[in-house]
């Protein structure tokens, strides 16, 4: 396995799955008592996390591209 640029989708879903798995295995959540006002923040948090990671990834890619172009030697005229 080779190191590559951060994949925001894998990271976001990975964090969501780990959180859900740990929460539901440790805490005995009674979904029947969870009202809608307690449900809706979860998808909002997930979408926010995903957007944040995508933005971070793009910013880093842009910075990498800029640093690469600066690092290229220019021919003396």
């Amino acid at each position, binding site marked *: *396995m080779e190191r590559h640029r951060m994949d925001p989708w*894998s990271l976001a879903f990975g964090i969501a*799955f*780990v959180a859900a798995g740990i929460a539901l*295995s440790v805490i005995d959540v009674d*979904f029947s008592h969870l009202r809608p006002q307690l449900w809706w923040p979860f998808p909002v948090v997930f979408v926010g996390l995903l957007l944040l990671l995508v933005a971070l990834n793009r910013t880093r890619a842009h910075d990498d591209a800029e640093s690469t172009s600066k690092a290229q030697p220019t021919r003396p005229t």
Partner: protein
Amino acid sequence: MGGEGRGRGDDDAGAEDQQVAVYPRLERRRTERLLGGVASGLADHFGLDPVLFRIGFVVLAVFGGSGVLLYVLGWLLLPEEGAGESAVVAATRDTGVRKLAALALFAVALLVLAGPVWMPFVQAGYLDASLLWSVVLVALGFMLLQGDRPPRSTAAPPPSPPVTPPGTGLAKRTTTARLPLRRTKPPRVRRKRSPLVWIVLGAMLLVVGCGALLDNLGLVDLGLRVLLATAVTVLGAGLIVGAFWGRARWLIPLGILLMPGLIFASVVEVPLRGSIGGHYEYPSNAAGLRSGYRVLAGDLQLDMTNFDFNEGETIIVPVRMIVGSLILSVPHGVSVEVDGHIGAGRSSFLGRRKQGFELNLDESDAKDDLTRRMILQVDAAFGSVAVHRYRLVKDLRAAARAKRREKQQRQEERQENNKQKQSQSAPNRGQNDKRGAG
């Protein structure tokens, strides 16, 4: 200088142009093929994705079966990569069979095409599958006849030496021998497949399998909720690793598929063990009674009418049920209590009925004079729970005998009374008769 730089770029572009081959020859691919390489060969030739041709073959095969026939024809008529000639051409080489076959195909095709003309009963707007087939036959005949020609070379023509006048690179651009513009197939860059998906899937199955095994052996009590949660956790950990090392995006849809099951298992405590189908239990003593009953799906009828209750004894029967019905039959002379809840369904306790969601069962018919008790602890997700009280046949017979005996005794007493009355009334009657005569 800038001019030198541009010239070098043009050199690269020229080299790329020269690497561009002519239309790839229509032939079956030898590598990276699924079956005979027909679809991939067609895709190479037309510069399209092989998946499109594969889908086309499958669709045609499903709707009418022509896809199979076309594929077989393609396999027979298209030469394999590097072979030069097709299987049919190779089989009929240096014989007149091929030309005869081609002529026959042409004749058939012409007959089909001319069908509307010579078949007066066919409507003028004749346009259906036979027309398509005729066109296909014509094309096949063409291909057969083309087999006479030597195969085209797939190699690119040798590059003409570029005439580079000293000076600018722009001049070089104008004098470079231009190859005809042809469709090029971008080189397929295959990303090296990451083993991370398989590693994560293997780890997930290993963890879940070991957990289920321990649960089934009775060493731990995990339940489906914990196992699914563990699977999702392992999968999520694999995705986090895959975000930086390797690639494991295929795990995302798998995790999304697992989540509804995990939520369901959280709502309903699903045991990993339990019976499926109908079961009838008829215990007669404590040894025949299990410590607990588990029903995954099905019916459980627990008949306690023949159970030998001791005086002052309390029997507790826990039942966990996912989907199904539970019927408890208790005898007379035993007080019964039901404690537990039903996620969705109905209950019937000695005639008192309830139904709905999240039913809390807290029923009792305890009486002071009944010292024998039975407690049913129910935890059911979906289904029904019913408690009936039955009298045994032998008890019924004994009761009937007792009733008959009572009735008989009452009759005997009545007869005795009548006799006594008659005996008392007999002397009085004699005295009255004497008085009447005097």
